[in-house]
């Protein structure tokens, strides 16, 4: 029993370090890393709980935690990556009106395919939004609204040129 207590203490120390990284991480990826290690600490704690209490229910809890942890980490990483590509959520904002567009435009096609949402889906989104964007063209450089996928509104022109 005392050895289990030692395991709980070690897991608590690891959870404190993970909380520090979750709260004070300079980039968004650091926070996701902290979340990842918090999930691992939760899995190990539930394994310890199953051994201490002698019930197998906590093992099922550990299996569920493993599934949720992988899905959470994957989705957060994808969101960070897409945000860093188009300049939307998280990371440093590109302050010039054309800065993000230039960075998006000069990317090689291999990198663009690595975004993972699928090029066909992006093409369909681009096509359906072409008309409304033409009407609101005179928004000026202050018009920096983007959709939740991280593509800024004004970057449709370069995409049309490229494709």
């Amino acid at each position: 029993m005392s050895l289990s207590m030692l395991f709980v203490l070690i897991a608590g120390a690891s959870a404190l370090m993970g909380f520090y990284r979750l709260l004070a991480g300079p980039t968004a990826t650091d926070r996701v890393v902290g979340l990842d290690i918090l999930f691992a600490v939760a899995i190990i704690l539930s394994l310890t709980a199953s051994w201490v209490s002698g019930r197998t229910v906590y093992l099922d809890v550990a299996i569920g935690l493993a599934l949720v942890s992988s899905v959470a980490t994957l989705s957060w990483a994808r969101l960070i990556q897409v945000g860093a590509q188009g300049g939307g959520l998280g990371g440093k904002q590109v302050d010039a009106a054309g800065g993000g567009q230039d960075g998006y435009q000069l990317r090689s096609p291999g990198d663009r395919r690595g975004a993972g949402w699928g090029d066909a889906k992006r093409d369909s989104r681009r096509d359906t939004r072409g008309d409304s964007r033409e009407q609101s063209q005179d928004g000026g450089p202050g018009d920096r609204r983007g959709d939740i996928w991280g593509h800024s509104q004004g970057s449709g022109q370069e995409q049309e040129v490229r494709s």
Partner: protein
Amino acid sequence: MMDPIGWAICGLGSVLLLIAALGILRLPDALARQHAATKAVTLAVLVFALGIGLLARDPAWTWRLLALACILILTLPLASHALARAAMRERMQVSGLDQIL
């Protein structure tokens, strides 16, 4: 007879978890922190599950722990890969490399 081995393996797993947490706390970069987090944490959880399985030699525990190990081995490299790519992309954006490449 198997109990000291099981306790020792559990202790090894928790020490690995502590080392991984120290790496997350101390390493200088997001990519390096992700490296410490995913690989060492995977090993720590697997070793801890092995120790618990040696402590409780019961088929109900063994099969559940095997399912946990399979899920971890199958899903954690995926999450690690996506996280590493996000870290690389974010580092390129912060350093301005994505304007060049």
